[in-house]
């Protein structure tokens, strides 16, 4: 796995930040200069330097924010999975068994806003150069990574708003299940740009009351939640069929036991911006059924939980779907409390968080919810506010929901060397 999150780049730094409940939300002066209501955001620190250490000058000229977060995460994930980067002098070897689904929600908006629009408006198209298309095409991330790693299976980018990252993992797992690939690099990314965040600011769905206290701004499940905090970054996970993984003695972080992706049809309370509760419940139950998992077996939930009005509804949807009341409810936490809502990148970064927690046997605190929303007060004791050691954790559910009423859910199962658990 590889991750570039607002509170840490790399698995070690990210895990440490999660355990410590360390927020990566900072004041962003540019947002103040541009009169944004929300002037805070989650941006991986020092990333300009980090990506310069990964790629040569020629490649860097084609790597915008979004592609940079994705490429660095993908390279990290590839190496973490035990693979070497291809020899730069080998122009022939293609890995036909490995593909990539690396999506994004908004994409190369910074390139469009800062380069395409001004250059075209000034009538200077000729001066734009050759590097625009590869940075603004929706498949810009997967295309870049496919070339870096010499991947020869399906290489594509999905997009399903804030469900993108989790959907990428689900779709990748399906491809492996179908026997069409042995291995898939699954993940997503989102750039950090006022041009990406502007639309959300205009909708007044992002936090406007915490500009002076950025680290307190992202407040999932809190009574004083005030909208989500925009975030950015990327993450990638190497998924592999079990046989191939065992054959090469790969370290197995977790098993993907169940997956489901659906849409609420924007009916029954669902809309472009809100989920149909039935769609959410069907998605959760679909993932459980897919994995043959009983709802009672779920130990923990890494929620979508963005810090908007929808959080209490989400918790209740989980409760209803699993038929588990507050006294019997799994643990539930929100990674967004520390990193904000990384939009298209959210699902993959949070899935890395979910898998790390399962693998290492802990649950990270859900910060900034010392004042639990009154509608879910009964669930208070199921929300870790301090890091929790949980070595016995075996099954963790991760879900993401996105604009368009789209849902995705993955059931991660602890890998215990093939023993049935």
């Amino acid at each position, binding site marked *: 796995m590889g991750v570039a999150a607002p509170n840490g780049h790399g698995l070690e730094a990210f895990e440490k930040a999660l355990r410590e409940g360390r927020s990566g939300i900072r004041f962003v002066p540019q947002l103040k200069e541009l009169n944004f209501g929300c002037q805070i955001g989650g941006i991986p620190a020092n990333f300009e330097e980090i990506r310069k250490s990964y790629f040569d*000058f*020629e490649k860097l*000229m084609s790597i915008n924010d979004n592609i940079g977060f994705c490429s660095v995460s993908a390279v990290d994930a590839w190496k973490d999975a035990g693979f070497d980067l291809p020899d*730069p002098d080998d122009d022939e070897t293609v890995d036909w068994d490995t593909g990539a689904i690396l999506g994004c929600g908004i994409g190369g908006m910074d390139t469009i806003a800062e380069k395409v629009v001004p250059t075209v408006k000034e009538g200077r198209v000729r*001066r734009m*150069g*050759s*590097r625009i298309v590869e940075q603004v095409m929706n498949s810009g991330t997967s295309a870049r990574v496919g070339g870096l790693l010499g991947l020869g299976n399906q290489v594509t980018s999905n997009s399903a708003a804030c469900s993108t990252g989790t959907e990428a993992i689900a779709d990748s797992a399906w491809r492996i299940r179908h026997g069409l690939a042995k291995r898939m690099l699954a993940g997503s990314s989102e750039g950090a740009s006022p041009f990406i965040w502007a639309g959300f600011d205009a909708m007044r769905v992002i936090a406007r009351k915490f500009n002076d206290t950025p680290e307190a701004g992202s407040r999932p499940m809190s009574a004083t939640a005030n909208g989500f905090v925009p975030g950015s970054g990327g993450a990638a996970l190497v998924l592999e069929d079990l046989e191939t993984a065992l054959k090469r003695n790969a370290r197995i972080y977790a098993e993907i036991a169940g997956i489901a992706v659906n849409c609420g049809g924007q009916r029954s309370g669902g809309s472009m911006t809100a989920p149909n509760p039935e769609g959410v419940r069907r998605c959760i139950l679909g993932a459980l059924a897919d994995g043959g998992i009983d709802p009672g077996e779920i130990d923990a939930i890494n929620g979508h939980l963005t810090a908007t009005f929808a959080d209490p509804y989400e918790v209740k949807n989980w409760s209803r779907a699993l038929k588990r009341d507050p006294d019997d409810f799994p643990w539930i936490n929100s990674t967004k409390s520390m990193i904000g809502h990384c939009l298209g990148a959210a699902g993959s970064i949070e899935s890395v968080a979910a898998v790390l927690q399962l693998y290492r046997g802990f649950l990270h605190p859900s910060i900034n919810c010392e004042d639990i929303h009154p509608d879910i007060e009964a669930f208070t004791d199921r929300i870790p506010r301090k890091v929790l050691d949980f070595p016995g954790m075996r099954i963790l559910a991760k879900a993401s929901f996105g604009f368009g009423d789209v849902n995705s859910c993955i059931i991660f199962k602890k890998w215990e060397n093939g023993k049935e658990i």
Partner: protein
Amino acid sequence: MDENKILEEIKNILRPYVKDGALLDQATTETHILDDLKVNSARLVDVIIKCEDIFGLTIEDDEADRIRTIGDAVKLIQEKLS
């Protein structure tokens, strides 16, 4: 500007686009930009823009299309500068 200076300047412009720097060190006016230096053809437009900026001139599309070797570029730029 004398020919050698233009040649060196063009080599500098090409450097980010050439994977194997040694090829460029040994390059002469006879060196073919795509075939010998293995520059990605899509990047030629960037090389042209950079030449325009560095030498302070404009290179038309049909002039750019005629450049095959480093020598072609040197000759074109020398003509334009004079």
